[in-house]
């Protein structure tokens, strides 16, 4: 069985970090089919060893300084949840206000064709499940996966590497433009034990291709679950990949996502992340600008209340000259919520004529909210223009006064200002149809937030 992970002896350090939360993980994915290729077993075992060596990161690990996963280790998880019974009608269609023309549905990390509607996509574009792509021995998928698994990337990536069972795979051939946005709906369901799932997603955009992916993560339960996602993106020369993520997981869920993108000459990666849900969530983006002309825009907006903890971590590596990056993250915090923004921009030696800009702003609406920001610049070339900015504080008292003096009640004035604050980030969403629903989400969140 390729999926069996011989880990019991080496798991000492990992197990030390908590209770029994890894019990189910040790037996590996129950892949059941003999279709999984032979190399996969070795890759999984190797990754499992790496995870065991690291253990779960605690706050002494610099990258996790502000985000504690102690909550996770207290859970007893169901690592191989049985396929949940989900009716198509119960699926939300919030993203576009209606069901998208092309939608792939994952439930607890597994692709569910019966719930999905995937029309024929132009120019041989493939949208399928990782399990299917592995079974059919798709050469591009295996190559990319092997390469990416070999790259190090911290304990939680190793944990995901050790599983490699399912997820979505999108392959856009060279020169193909996919006009319709592709919606990925990821549903988490509760269970007697909180399910743990680790989908591995791949987006391969050929040279000169264009594609837009909208990921929508929702929880169809009140209880918790643990989602540990990794998405690998490879953009060929001059490709344009737009990635828009709406994270509206259950308020008890732990959502840890890593997206790792490599961009070739002249390629463009445009990411927007809207974070609303989750008890503990982390959205980590690593973008490597590998050839001249590569360009990325990373934007995000977040709303957190109660005891939510939301973390946005980015790392942009300007590995080649004439590359460009731009980042804007804005968030609003209420209750006892905590937000983290860590943004790293690296400019390598000889990567001249680089521009890298970054801005992070947070609004604190309550006495007990907290924001921790760590923007970092590591510059090894001289002909560069890099900047970062960070602010944290309450709404501008003067703006509030202005509205109040014109007869706008305080509550409404605050709501207007918060919406205006977040809309700056939301305006950056390339997909016009997405903006209004997102703005509505902000308005609803503001209306529903408990009055202090």
């Amino acid at each position, binding site marked *: 069985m390729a999926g069996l992970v011989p880990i019991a002896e080496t798991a000492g350090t990992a197990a030390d970090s908590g209770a029994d939360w890894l019990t189910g993980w040790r037996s590996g994915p129950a892949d059941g089919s003999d279709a999984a290729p032979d190399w996969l077993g070795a890759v999984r075992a190797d990754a499992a060893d790496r995870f065991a060596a690291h253990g779960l990161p605690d706050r002494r690990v*610099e990258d996790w300084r502000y985000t504690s996963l102690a909550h996770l280790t207290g859970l007893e998880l169901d690592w191989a949840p049985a396929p949940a019974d989900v009716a198509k009608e119960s699926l939300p269609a919030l993203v576009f206000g209606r069901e998208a023309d092309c939608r792939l549905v994952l439930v607890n990390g597994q692709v569910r064709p019966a719930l999905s509607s995937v029309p024929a996509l132009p120019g041989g574009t493939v949208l399928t499940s990782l399990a299917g792509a592995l079974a059919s021995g798709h050469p591009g998928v295996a190559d990319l996966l092997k390469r990416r698994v070999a790259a190090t990337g911290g304990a939680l990536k190793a944990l995901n590497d050790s599983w490699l069972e399912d997820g979505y795979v999108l392959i856009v051939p060279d020169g193909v433009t996919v006009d319709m946005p592709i919606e990925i709906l990821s549903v988490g369901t509760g269970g007697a034990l909180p399910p743990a799932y680790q989908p591995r997603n791949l987006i391969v955009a050929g040279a000169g291709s264009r594609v837009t992916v909208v990921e929508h993560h929702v929880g169809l339960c009140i209880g918790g679950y643990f989602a540990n996602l990794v998405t690998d993106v490879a953009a060929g020369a001059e490709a344009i990949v737009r990635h828009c993520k709406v994270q509206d997981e259950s308020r008890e869920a732990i959502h840890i996502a890593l997206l790792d993108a490599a961009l070739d000459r002249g390629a463009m990666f445009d990411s927007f992340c809207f974070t609303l849900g989750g008890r503990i969530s982390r959205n980590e983006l690593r973008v490597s600008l590998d050839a001249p002309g590569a360009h990325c825009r990373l934007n995000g907006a977040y709303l957190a209340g109660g005891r939510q903890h939301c973390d946005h971590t980015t790392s942009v590596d300007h590995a080649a000259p004439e590359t460009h990056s731009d980042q804007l993250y804005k968030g609003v915090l209420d209750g006892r919520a905590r937000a983290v923004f860590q943004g790293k921009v690296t400019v390598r*030696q*000889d990567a*001249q004529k680089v521009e890298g800009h970054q801005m992070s702003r*947070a609004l*604190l*609406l*309550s*006495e*007990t*909210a*907290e*924001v*921790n*920001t*760590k*923007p*970092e*610049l*590591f*510059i*090894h*070339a*001289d*002909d*560069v*223009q*890099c*900047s*970062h*900015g*960070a*602010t*944290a*504080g*309450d709404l501008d008292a003067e703006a509030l006064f202005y509205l109040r003096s014109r007869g706008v009640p305080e509550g409404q004035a605050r709501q207007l200002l918060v919406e205006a604050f977040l809309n700056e980030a939301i305006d950056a969403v390339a997909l016009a149809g997405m903006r209004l629903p997102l703005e509505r989400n902000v308005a609803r969140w503001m209306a529903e937030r408990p009055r202090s």
Partner: protein
Amino acid sequence: MAATAQTVAQVRDLGKYKHGWETEIEMETAPKGLNEDIVRFISARKDEPDWMLDWRLKAYRHWLTMTEPTWAMVDYPAIDFQDIYYYAAPKNTEGPKSLDEVDPELLRTYEKLGIPLKEQEVLAGVQGAPKVAVDAVFDSVSVATTFKKELESHGVIFCSISEALQNHPELVRKYLGTVVPYTDNFYATLNSAVFSDGSFVYIPPGVHCPMELSTYFRINAKDTGQFERTLIVAEEGSYVSYLEGCTAPMRDENQLHAAVVELVALKDAEIKYSTVQNWYPGDETGKGGIYNFVTKRGACRGDDSKIRWTQVETGSAITWKYPSCILQGDNSVGEFYSVAIANNAQQADTGTKMIHLGRNTRSRIISKGISAGRARNTYRGLVRMGPKALNGRNFTQCDSLLIGDRCGAHTVPYIESRNRTAKVEHEATTSRIGEDQLFYCRQRGIGEEDAVALIVNGFCKEVLQELPMEFAVEAQKLVGISLEGSVG
């Protein structure tokens, strides 16, 4: 040459006669290495009270449990802490015999800074040159004592910390280690165990210190050694401005420097602490330069108190230094102005921490980093707004300038806000000298090096203007000199 020899002789005589420096201390050197006996030895030599020895020993025992920090972006070969003299008398015999033997490069730099010949000897460590504070020797021997008298008339205590331990033990005991506890960090703990000497300043309530205090004026300043400890206490409503260091490059035998500086500002008090650090950076490959691992921290204990750090860091092979402010009192203010220049193989990891605890506390951070050659320059800072820092305010600006394509400039700020009413703003930029600015200067007949110095001085202006007048002028020259050879 004859004239030089004559001055050397004269200066030597001056030192021997008027001050009687060659006391028995010079004969004593503790063996290499560090253990409890060495700590006891140091304490006994200084005839310290028992509580001081206990404190040193506690620090030493704690130090044994600690590991050297590795998080800073600096590389250096491992330090063998057992291969260091922790108590050594000044080495008179090892210096050059006259200025003729001093590295001509060093002399050229002195000349550019406009330092008088006699002063050069002291700085270069010429054998026989007096060890008293620089200005005190050259102007007149009585200068130092005159200053002392005037300070005494105001009730200001300004002396070495060893003297303070003899004459004012109660004050030292009350404040020492209250800002930087002996458990603070690896180097501060080491310093607590073995500190050799340093300055002690006490400004009584309501006193506006009548002059800028400088290590220049303090007798014994030069032999404070590698583990210097400074403690400045400003009582209620008092004011003091303290200058440390010197613009001229200092020759020094000790490669590792681990100093600790503690500032205490009580209600309505204000402390300005200015540093110009220009220790030997090593040769072009960084060989032989000083490792400067310093812990500097100020506590704004009282309401409406203020601490301002201003630093110009151009020397040392490695600088590891984060002058910080703990803003405890309501309405207290912390400021940090820094210029850090790293050329050739120098590495600087410097910045500040502003910990806002009290209400209406304000802080301002202006940091200018300049990297040239193969140097690495890192700004590392923390701004923390505690839950009670109502209406706290911080503004941070970190700008980095790159000269040459083999250097690095890094910015690592940590910003933590736990108060809604607090406002934190941080901005950082990194760029190189604009071609258009250079072109403008060149076109008007300004040589390339001068043009760079001019532009860099403009870049640092915000910080340099915070320095006391006499420092500011020299610091401007220093900026130019530090960057020599970095262009063209």
